[in-house]
């Protein structure tokens, strides 16, 4: 880039120079040009101010809710596992049978 005192580098070149390494010619121009050197300093200040914005803590109640996600089994796996295996559990078969008998009894007593 040809950057003499009358030929200022582009904004993009200056921002690149403010954040990263710059080539020799550009550096020489910036050292001699107060306008460009101010521009670079302003970009660096903005970058530093952004980096200095304080991170907010995660609200306590949210942290509790998130950590509760991992308690016990995975929710979707739990439901799927239950649906696939409930009929193998004698206690649940007994409950289901009793429920079906009660329902049948209630239906019959309504009609009779």
């Amino acid at each position, binding site marked *: 880039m040809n950057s003499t005192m009358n030929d200022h580098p582009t*904004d*993009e070149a200056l*921002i*690149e120079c403010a*954040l990263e390494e710059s080539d020799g010619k550009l550096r020489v121009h910036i050292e001699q040009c107060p306008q460009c050197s101010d*521009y670079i300093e*302003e*970009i660096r200040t*903005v*970058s530093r*101010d*952004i*980096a*200095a*914005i*304080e*991170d*907010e*803590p*995660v*609200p306590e109640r*949210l*942290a509790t*809710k*998130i*950590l509760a*996600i*991992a*308690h016990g089994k*995975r929710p*979707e796996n739990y439901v799927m596992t239950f649906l696939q295996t409930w009929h193998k559990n004698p206690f649940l078969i007994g409950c289901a049978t009793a429920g079906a008998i009660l329902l049948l009894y209630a239906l019959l007593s309504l009609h009779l």
Partner: protein
Amino acid sequence: MNEHEFKNLYHDHGRNLYNFILWITVNRSICEDILQEVFVKLWRCETVPAEPDELRRWLLTVTRRTCLDFLRKSSRFARLRHKYQTERRESPSDPDAPFLWEKLENLPEMERSILYLHLKIGHTYREIADMFDLTENRVRVRAFRALKRLRETLTKKEL
């Protein structure tokens, strides 16, 4: 992943992700729902990257996608955003921070996200490009454009 690993991941990344969501959405209420959804996805995911840097990039990518999905779906966004801005400006820890934050809010979401990842987290343009599915040059251009706009608005304040 077991419960202990999940908790470690939350302690290592929860705060960063929460603040990343805050930068993307500019909305504290929606931020809580999104962070919760990200960790539900993490807990349900069968193939979480093992390598720490890769995991961090994966989490940031999932977080941003979840944010964008939420923002698309949420019709309450404008109202909540206004509420959040008011809350944030009323409790500044740094007297100049609310003004800078106000200027950041006016940037497009992608530029704000790039600035957060590059200037606060320290990701390179290459890494951000991979996360956002853009070219490195495009990320650089967006970052420069954002900084140029911020410099212009902030120097106007001082004049």
